[in-house]
């Protein structure tokens, strides 16, 4: 299978994207943002629709703009709302999906866009890989500079502020970064399952670790391993790569849940 160029590209994309998703996922799971990132992923439908309406040949830019605006708005809303914003997220989820489908399905044209729903890693281009490389570098630098501030903010925002952390800046910049990474990866894994790729490695790692270092390390290992195994299996099975990767990661989650019970006994 490695005689094909597209498999080389796909492998490179997996090696770049999976650790990135694992890293971001650790904070998404710690901060209880799982539903939030699902809304971001699904906002891609509205982004594509607006791109089509405005005549963009590549809708990536409108997709990113919609997701970033949504992410920042939800973050602002969280600051002024007392209690959970679960319901608001549910409403936004329904709205962005419905709006996207309504616009894209005019005159029965939705079938053209179903590729976005499940994605295609094998179609990744060297130019896209270049972008992923750049984004991975940005996330690594961000994680290095803001990692501790993010940990403190997730534990107690007031405590973080008493240590000089600008929690609003941290939360906003993190959600913007998250929106960009999720949107640019959608062509690879698809709207339907992109959130699982973000959540599963971190959720699995969390079951079996007791420190931030272990949490991050195992999330990255599980994510890369699921990525490579899923890619290879999808080649032999003739299945969608993104979904196959997610299935492997879900298997890891199940194993970690069982192991975690034993470790915590």
């Amino acid at each position, binding site marked *: 299978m490695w005689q094909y160029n597209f498999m080389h590209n796909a492998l490179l994309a997996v090696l770049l994207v999976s650790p990135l998703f694992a890293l971001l996922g*650790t904070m998404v799971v*710690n901060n*209880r943002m799982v539903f939030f990132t699902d809304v971001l992923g699904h906002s891609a439908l509205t982004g594509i629709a607006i791109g089509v309406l405005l005549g963009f040949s590549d809708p990536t830019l409108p997709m990113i703009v919609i997701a970033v605006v949504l992410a920042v708005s939800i973050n602002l809303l969280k600051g002024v709302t007392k209690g959970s914003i679960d319901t608001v997220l549910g409403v936004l989820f329904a709205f962005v999906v419905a709006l996207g489908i309504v616009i894209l399905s005019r005159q029965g044209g939705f079938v053209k866009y179903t590729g976005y729903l499940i994605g295609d890693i094998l179609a990744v281009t060297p130019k896209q890989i270049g972008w992923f490389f750049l984004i991975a570098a940005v996330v690594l630098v961000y*994680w*290095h500079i803001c*990692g*501790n*501030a993010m*940990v*403190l903010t*997730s*534990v*107690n*925002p*007031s*405590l973080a*502020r*008493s*240590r000089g952390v600008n929690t609003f800046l941290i939360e906003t910049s993190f959600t913007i970064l998250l929106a960009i990474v999720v949107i640019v990866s959608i062509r690879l894994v698809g709207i339907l399952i992109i959130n699982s790729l973000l959540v599963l490695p971190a959720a699995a*790692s*969390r079951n079996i*670790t*007791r*420190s*931030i*270092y*272990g*949490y*991050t390390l195992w999330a990255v290992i599980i994510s890369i391993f699921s990525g490579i195994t899923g890619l290879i299996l999808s080649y032999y099975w003739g299945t969608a790569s993104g979904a196959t990767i997610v299935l492997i990661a879900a298997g890891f989650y199940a194993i970690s849940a069982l192991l975690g019970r034993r470790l915590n006994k």
Partner: protein
Amino acid sequence: MVNTCGHCCTKVEDLTVKFGDNSILDKVNLHVNCGEVLGIVGPNGAGKTTLLRTILGEVPYQGRIIYRLEGSASKKPKIGYVPQKLQFDLSSPISVADITAAAISHYPVWGGIKPDILEKVKSVLSLFSAEHLLKRRVGELSGGELQRVLLAIAMTPEPDLLLLDEPASGVDVKGLSLFYQSVDDLRKKYDISVILVTHDLTGVAGFADRLILLNRSIIAEGEPKDVLAKAGNKNVAV
């Protein structure tokens, strides 16, 4: 009563905080001297935590908060803050070493804690006999253990003003007297001012130098026993 340097370190003048049309704090005036413990009691919703959050700079306010440090009236003080509780998922894989290292160093904890930072973390925790908790997950700690860890973090670097939010909640009697003892030692040793928000009337009476009864505005202020007597007379449930 402790011998303090006598200088007023923190002064709050006509502090008013409003959320919309709702007044949470109304023209509150108070001061804390160096080495002094000021207790704040009051019913739920009296604005006690809002007062601490305002001093931390989280809440917009009208009025003035003035600090006087080493003769200068404008310098921003170092504030140590011990929150009432942590608002995170208790099963999170965050260890005591992680949270301490994240607070006292810039080197990112997700890459592992470097040996020199780990040594510093141990020495910080040992201030409050908490070094044995190093590898425990924060979510597994008892109320008293968590407070010792948070106090150790708040004391590093040594602050000018220490804010304690409800240290009595979730802590048993023994843990609480250990906590008060530690804070008492600190203010004597470092001459720091302490503002303590609490529901524990018995404990605070023997510990604070002065007490304020707050219910959106200041109802009574003075010696702990006098304030508590007034609270009883005014029938304010604290």
